[in-house]
């Protein structure tokens, strides 16, 4: 893959957000972060376009559910695939309800995280 993949990381935990950003940059991704759904919407509107959104569910201000509702209304952002990353029991079901492409349970390992992102992005490009 020649193009750099941009990942929008949406999580209210500062350490996790920083860690994810650090790890993903290490693996060659471009990373944009937001600490809640509202910030994430602002990032989407400001650009650059994200290729995948890593979305936590339980967040203050605007949670993952509300973000999904709003995301589909942002021009050009409707189709960006979402991977739910949550510590919530039953996150799989929530992810399915939100039509996320994948669901990762916290704590996730780096390898699993990378595999999932690659798969989701490849899937989006193939479609």
């Amino acid at each position, binding site marked *: 893959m020649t193009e750099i993949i941009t990942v929008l990381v949406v999580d209210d935990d500062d350490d996790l957000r920083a860690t994810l950003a650090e*790890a993903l940059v290490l693996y060659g991704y471009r990373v944009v972060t937001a600490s809640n759904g509202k910030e994430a919407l602002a990032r989407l509107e400001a650009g650059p376009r994200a290729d995948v959104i890593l979305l936590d569910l*339980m967040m203050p201000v605007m949670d993952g559910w509300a973000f999904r509702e709003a995301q589909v209304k942002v021009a050009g952002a409707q189709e960006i695939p979402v991977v739910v990353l949550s510590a*919530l*029991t039953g996150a799989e079901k929530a992810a399915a*309800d939100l039509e996320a492409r994948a669901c990762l349970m916290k*704590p996730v390992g780096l390898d699993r995280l990378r595999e999932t992102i690659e798969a989701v992005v490849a899937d989006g490009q193939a479609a």
Partner: protein
Amino acid sequence: MSEARKRIFIVEDQRLIAADLKNTLEKLGYVVVGGAASGEEALSEVDDAKPDLLLMDIRLGGEMDGIETASAIQKRRDVPVVYVTAYADEETIRRAKLTSPFGYVVKPYNERELRAAIEIALYKHETDRLLADERARRQAAEEFRTLVHFLDRATVSLTSTLSTSETVERAASVSIPHLADCCLVDLANDRGRLVQVAASHMDPEKVKLARKLGRTLVPELGLEHGAAATFRTGRSQIHPSIDDESWAAEILGIGHPELLRALGVSSYICVPIRFAGRVQGVINFLRTEARRYRAKDLDVAEEFSRRVGLALDNARLYQEMEAAVQMRDEFLQVASHELRTPLTPLKLQLHMLREMVPGAEASSAEVVRKFDVANRQLGRLERLVESLLEVGRFGGGGTALEVESFDLVELAHDVVERFAEEAATKGSTLRVNASQPVEGRWDRHRLDQVVSNLVSNALKYGAGHPVEVAVEDRGAEATLSVRDEGIGIEAEALDRIFGKFERASSVRNYGGLGLGLYISGVLAQAHGGRITASSRPGKGATFTLWLPRYAAASHRAKRRETNHDGDHHRPRGG
């Protein structure tokens, strides 16, 4: 018949005949307790005289004749009458018959006839009385049977629900018709005020009206009678007649007493409902004029209310328990969410640190070893968090199995392979003993958990001796046994090792939350199976998982809806 001398009252207007009768009767051994020359005189004196029998002339001076007099007296006293008369015409006899006379003596009488008439009358009267007593006893027994049946039926109905609203509805409906024609139940609300919670009426079309009455039955608390008073004092009330509307309004505090007439009720009982040590409400029973309440109805009403109280207390305890379970489940969910969140950056950071260690230096090996320990402990922490949640899930009312057909022997091999490295480290040989595939329908993931747990325990307590996993086909059941030759388990500890947080060994020697066996037991039960354990201390232990081979497919435990299933209930924050 009693040995006491019989008391006779004479009603005769001819003084000579009266005196002769008195003489004759006394000679015959009777006591003459009084006499009267007219009906009026007889009526005024007979009550004081308390006679066992009236000797009555039919033709009397004064307004009333003997037949009218006898009829008037019999309305007040149960006393036999023997007529002494010179007449015996058809009309007189017809009229006399209406007073159910016990005998006739035609004048002029003789002693023998008189005595025979009196004795027959007394005997007949006594027989009638015994018959009436017997009938009354039978009726009482029948009433008692009906009452017992009613209370039994009421209890069955009341105790077959654990919902408060359903219990009070049933209380109102089951009390009809035995105890009431209209029943209204009031319970205290959160602020301690009585609120109508159920209403019923014989006529289903009047239930709405009954509800309306019920709402006006709960007046200000200052009154000395009525529902509010019973609620305040805990004392029952019986008002056989509440026909007077202004009285009902003023004394009982009934807001719209005209409703009583519309409902056709005019007799009232109010009893308290007690549970958890205090008055929690009242039951109002109302009946029609034809079935006015009597004192004994109050006893029944109180007994009924006592049972309603017990049922409501049960419902309350059940709801409290449900709430506690719900709270625990919610807590466990929040707790596991909170525990997993910091594990995530920790795990990622460890991974990145590990990759930063240069491979060539001598000190690297030591650093890598330390990372491995940290990583292993992190993995253990992750599994503990998962276990914690499993406990909540199973304790909270079960979980759904995802059954499929597979070979238990194959699963045993999978698990053994996964534990090969750990077994080698501990110095134990670990092998599967099975001669043929053992197929069945089970939840593969859950059984993997169970077998892993049993194998992990066997290695942990196996003291480096061999561990064997045996799978057997036993017809309708399949068994998987994990046998070690380690320290074993004391007999007294065998029973409780499946309990939550129980471990047979001491805390100092072995770590772990002790949830594994508990969860394994619950998972086996979810399959309709069980886990048994046998051991001899010092000689090792064998844990056997028993599974019905195909029953599992039909087993689907009740799934409790937890609060992560939708937008409405999800917990906020963190």
